C-alpha cells in the first residue's frame, strides 16, 4: 500500500501528470491517424525521451500506449480505416453502425469499452501483477503452441458468409508468414536474394498498406462511382447522439467482462500479442450475440452494426495494454512488441525492468503501474473531446483530398518504421492486394490472423517437438501439459460446435418441425 502511494506521489507531480495527459492526447491523435501507430510514435519519440527525466518520459509513453489503442477506433468507425491494427475488427460493426446514421453511438460504445477494458486491466496490474507473472511463467513451448492454435480457431467466428473465401484468406496469411528467415532451420525462405525480406515482409508497413492504403483506394473508387453517376458526393455518416442508454450499458456489461478477461489473460502472456486478444474476444461476443439477440426485428445482424461487435474488440485491446506490463515489470519479459520498446526507453535512463527495478527504483516502477490507472481515467473525457474535433475535421475534408492525406500518411508511416525505402513499396503493394481481395469478396480478417500467428505457430510447434523428442502427443497430454490440453480441447469445440449446430438445424428442417433453415451461422 505504501508503495502504491509512493507511485501516486511520483505521478501527481504537476510535470509528470501533465506528461500523462499530453501522452493520452498524443496517443488518441496518433491512434486516430491511419498509417501511424504507437510503435511508430515510440520509434520517433524514444530519441527525444533522452532529454526528459525518466519519470516524465515513461509517463508520456504510458499515455501514448493506452490511448493509441483507443484512438484507432475513431477512423475505423468514421471511415472504415482502422487507425491502428488494434481497431481492425472494430471497422466491421463500427462502420456499419455509422452508415446507419449512428456514428455517435458507435464511437461512444468504442470509447466506453476502451476505458472499461483499460481500467479493469490497470486494476489487475495494480493488484495481482506478481501472481499473474507466475501464471505467465507456466506457459512453455507446448502451451504457446496450443495458444496459437486456439487463436487461429477464432477464425471460425469470422467465417460468416462464404466459408471457402474465409479459409482462402487465412491460408494466404499463413503462406505469407513463411517468407523470410526461418526461425526453425535458420535458412531464408522465399526471399529471392533480397536482404529486405530476410526478416519476412516488414510487418508494420504491411499492416499500414492492408488498412490505410487499401482504404484510400476504396475511397477513390467511391469518388469515381459518384462521378460516373453524376450525382453529388455522398456525405460521410452523421454523428448523431453520443448518449448510451442504460439498457445498452446493462446489455454490454457481460461482453466487457469477458473481453477484458480475455485481453488481460492474453496480455499477460509474453508473445501472444494484442491482435489475438481482439479476435478471441470478437469470436466470444459473436457467439453470445447469436444466442441472445440475433434475428430480433430491431436488431442489426452480426457484422452489420451489432453493438457487441464494437464493444468486444475495443475492451479487449485496451485490456491488453496494462496487463502486458505485468511480465515486463515483474520479470523483465516484454509482453508484446510495443511493451518491448519500454525496455529501450528505460535502458536509456539506466533502468532495467524486472524484480530489481522494484528494489532499486520502486518509485518509478509503481509510478508506471499507477499511471495506467490514471491514463484510463483521464482518457474518457479527453476521448470525447478528440472525437468531436477529429470527426468535425474529417467532415470538413472533401473525399478527394482525404484520399491524398491518407496515402501521404501511410507512406510516411511505412517509411519511418526503419527509415527504409523498401517499406514504402511494401505498403503500396499490400494496399493493392487488400483492395483486390476486397473486390473479390475475400475477407481480410482471417489473413491478418494467419500473418500474425503463422511464424509463432511454426516456431512453437517445432520447439515443442524439440523438447518432446518428436512426440506429437505432447500437445494433448493432460498430465504433463494440462493447460495445453485444455486449450486444444477448446479449439476443437470452436470448430465442431458451429458445424454440429448447422447439422442439427438441417435435420430439424428436414423433419419439418423447425423453423425454415437459416444459412449456417458458422
Amino acid at each position, binding site marked *: 500500500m505504501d508503495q502504491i502511494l509512493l507511485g501516486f506521489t511520483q505521478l501527481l507531480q504537476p510535470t509528470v501528470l501533465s506528461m500523462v495527459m499530453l501522452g493520452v492526447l498524443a496517443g488518441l491523435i496518433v491512434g486516430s491517424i491511419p498509417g501511424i501507430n504507437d510503435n511508430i510514435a515510440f*520509434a520517433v519519440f*524514444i530519441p527525444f525521451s533522452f532529454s526528459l527525466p525518466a519519470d516524465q518520459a515513461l509517463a508520456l509513453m504510458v499515455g501514448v500506449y493506452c490511448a493509441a489503442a483507443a484512438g484507432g477506433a475513431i477512423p475505423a468507425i468514421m471511415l472504415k480505416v482502422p487507425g491502428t491494427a488494434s481497431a481492425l475488427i472494430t471497422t466491421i460493426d463500427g462502420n456499419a453502425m455509422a452508415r446507419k446514421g449512428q456514428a455517435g453511438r458507435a464511437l461512444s460504445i468504442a470509447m466506453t469499452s476502451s476505458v472499461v477494458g483499460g481500467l479493469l486491466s490497470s486494476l489487475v496490474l495494480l493488484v495481482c501483477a506478481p501472481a499473474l507473472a507466475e501464471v505467465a511463467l507456466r506457459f512453455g513451448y507446448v502451451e504457446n503452441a496450443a495458444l496459437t492454435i486456439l487463436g487461429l480457431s477464432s477464425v471460425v467466428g469470422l467465417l460468416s458468409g462464404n466459408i471457402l473465401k474465409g479459409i482462402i484468406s487465412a491460408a494466404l496469411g499463413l503462406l505469407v508468414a513463411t517468407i523470410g528467415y526461418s526461425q526453425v532451420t535458420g535458412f*531464408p525462405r522465399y526471399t529471392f536474394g533480397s536482404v529486405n525480406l530476410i526478416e519476412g515482409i516488414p510487418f508494420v508497413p504491411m499492416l499500414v498498406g492492408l488498412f490505410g492504403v487499401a482504404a484510400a483506394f476504396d475511397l477513390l473508387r467511391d469518388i469515381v462511382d459518384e462521378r460516373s453517376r453524376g450525382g453529388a458526393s455522398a456525405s460521410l455518416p452523421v454523428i448523431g447522439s453520443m448518449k448510451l442508454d442504460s439498457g445498452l450499458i446493462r446489455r454490454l456489461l457481460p461482453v466487457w467482462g469477458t473481453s477484458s478477461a480475455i485481453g488481460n489473460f492474453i496480455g499477460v502472456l509474453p508473445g501472444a500479442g494484442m491482435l489475438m486478444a481482439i479476435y478471441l474476444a470478437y469470436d466470444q461476443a459473436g457467439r453470445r450475440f447469436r444466442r441472445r439477440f440475433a434475428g430480433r426485428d430491431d436488431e442489426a445482424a452480426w457484422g452489420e452494426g451489432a453493438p457487441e461487435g464494437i464493444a468486444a474488440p475495443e475492451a479487449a485491446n485496451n485490456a491488453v495494454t496494462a496487463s502486458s506490463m505485468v511480465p515486463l515489470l515483474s520479470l*523483465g519479459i516484454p509482453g508484446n512488441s510495443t511493451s518491448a520498446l519500454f525496455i529501450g526507453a528505460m535502458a*536509456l535512463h539506466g533502468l*532495467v525492468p524486472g524484480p530489481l527495478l522494484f528494489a532499486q527504483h520502486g518509485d518509478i516502477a509503481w509510478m508506471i503501474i499507477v499511471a495506467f490507472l490514471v491514463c484510463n481515467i483521464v482518457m474518457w473525457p479527453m476521448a470525447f473531446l478528440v472525437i468531436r474535433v477529429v470527426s468535425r475535421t474529417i467532415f470538413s475534408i472533401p473525399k478527394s483530398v482525404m484520399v491524398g492525406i491518407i496515402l501521404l500518411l501511410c507512406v510516411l508511416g511505412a517509411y519511418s518504421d526503419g527509415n527504409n525505402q523498401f517499406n514504402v513499396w511494401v505498403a503500396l503493394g499490400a494496399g493493392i492486394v487488400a483492395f483486390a481481395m476486397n473486390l473479390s469478396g475475400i475477407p481480410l480478417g482471417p489473413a491478418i490472423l494467419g500473418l500474425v500467428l503463422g511464424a509463432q505457430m511454426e516456431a512453437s510447434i517445432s520447439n515443442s517437438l524439440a*523438447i518432446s523428442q518428436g512426440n506429437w502427443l505432447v500437445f494433448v497430454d493432460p498430465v504433463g501439459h494440462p493447460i495445453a490440453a485444455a486449450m486444444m480441447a477448446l479449439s476443437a469445440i470452436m470448430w465442431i460446435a458451429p458445424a454440429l449446430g448447422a447439422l442439427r438445424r438441417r435435420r430439424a428442417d428436414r423433419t419439418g418441425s423447425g423453423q425454415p433453415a437459416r444459412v449456417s451461422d458458422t
Partner: protein
Amino acid sequence: MMKSLGLALVLGGALATSALAQDYPVRDIDLVVPFAPGGAVDVTSRLIAEAANGFLDGAEVVVSNRAGGGGVVGQSFVANAEPDGYTLLAMTSSVVTNPQLKGAPYEVADFTPVAAYNLDPEVIAVPADSRFATIEDFINAAREAPLTMTIAGIGTSHHMAGLALTSTAKAQFTYVPAKGFGEQLQAVIGGHADGAFWPMGEAMSHAKSGTVRILAVASDMRDANFPDVPTFEEAGLGIPIWATFRGWAVPAGTPEPVVAFLSELMEKIAKDETYQKKMADGGFDATYRNADDFQKIITSYAEQASVIIKENNLSE
C-alpha cells in the same frame, strides 16, 4: 643528415595528420544503427552519441536507425557509403557472419574497424532452481544426454558457442531458437529449457535479482559482479574467450587520420565518468579497444565462426 630528414618526415607527417584531423569533422557524423530504436545497440549508440557531442565542436554524432533484414539493410548501407568518415556503423558480431549465413551483399573487409566499446562474454545460464549446481554437473549431464538450450536464433554467436562446446567438451545440446530475449528469459525462468547461452549483458540483471544462475563465463577473467562463477577455461571447456562485440566501423578506404580521430574520440568517451555510469546502469560493460585490437577481435571471431559454420553446414 638522414636522421634529421627522417625526423622532418615524421614531424611533417604528424603535422599533416593533425591538419587533416583538424578539417574533420566539419559537419554532422551519421552513426548508422542497423536496428530499430529501443534495442541494445540503439541504446548504447545513443549514450555514446550524447557523450561524443561533449567532445566535438561544430559537429555532432547523430544516430540514424536503418532497420531491416536483421541488420543487413543498415550494414549494407554503410558498406556502400562514401568513405569520408561521415558515415559510421554501429558494428556487431553479426557483420562477420551475415555474408556466410544470410547472403549479405558485403564482406567484412568492406569495413575498417575504428574502436570497440563493449565486449559481452557468453555465459551459460540456468533457472535459479536448476538441478545443476555447478558447471561440472551441467557438462556431465550434457555428455550423457542432450540438454535443451534456448538461444537467440540458429546461426547466432550464441548458437555457435554451443556448437563450439560440442567440439571442445563433447557436450550435447538441443537448441530451441526464440525470437527476442523475452521469450528466452521466460523459457529459462519458467523452467521450460535446461538453460541458455546468453551474453553477460543480458543475463546480468536477472542473475543479480536471483531469477537465473550463471554457471560459467567465456571470458579471460572472472566477472567482478560474480566472483564465484568460473571462466570457461577454468571449467576445462577449452574455449578461452567467446564474446559478442559492439564497436564502430567505417567503410573501407576511409583516410587513416579520420579513423585515428574517431578512435581517439571513442577513447575519450570511454574515460568519461557520466558515460561509464550510464552504461553500467543500463547493464553494459563500458570497455575500449583501439582500431588494431578491435581488428584482432574481429579476425579471431571470424576464424572461429567460419570453422563452425562449415562443420555444421549452416551456410546458405
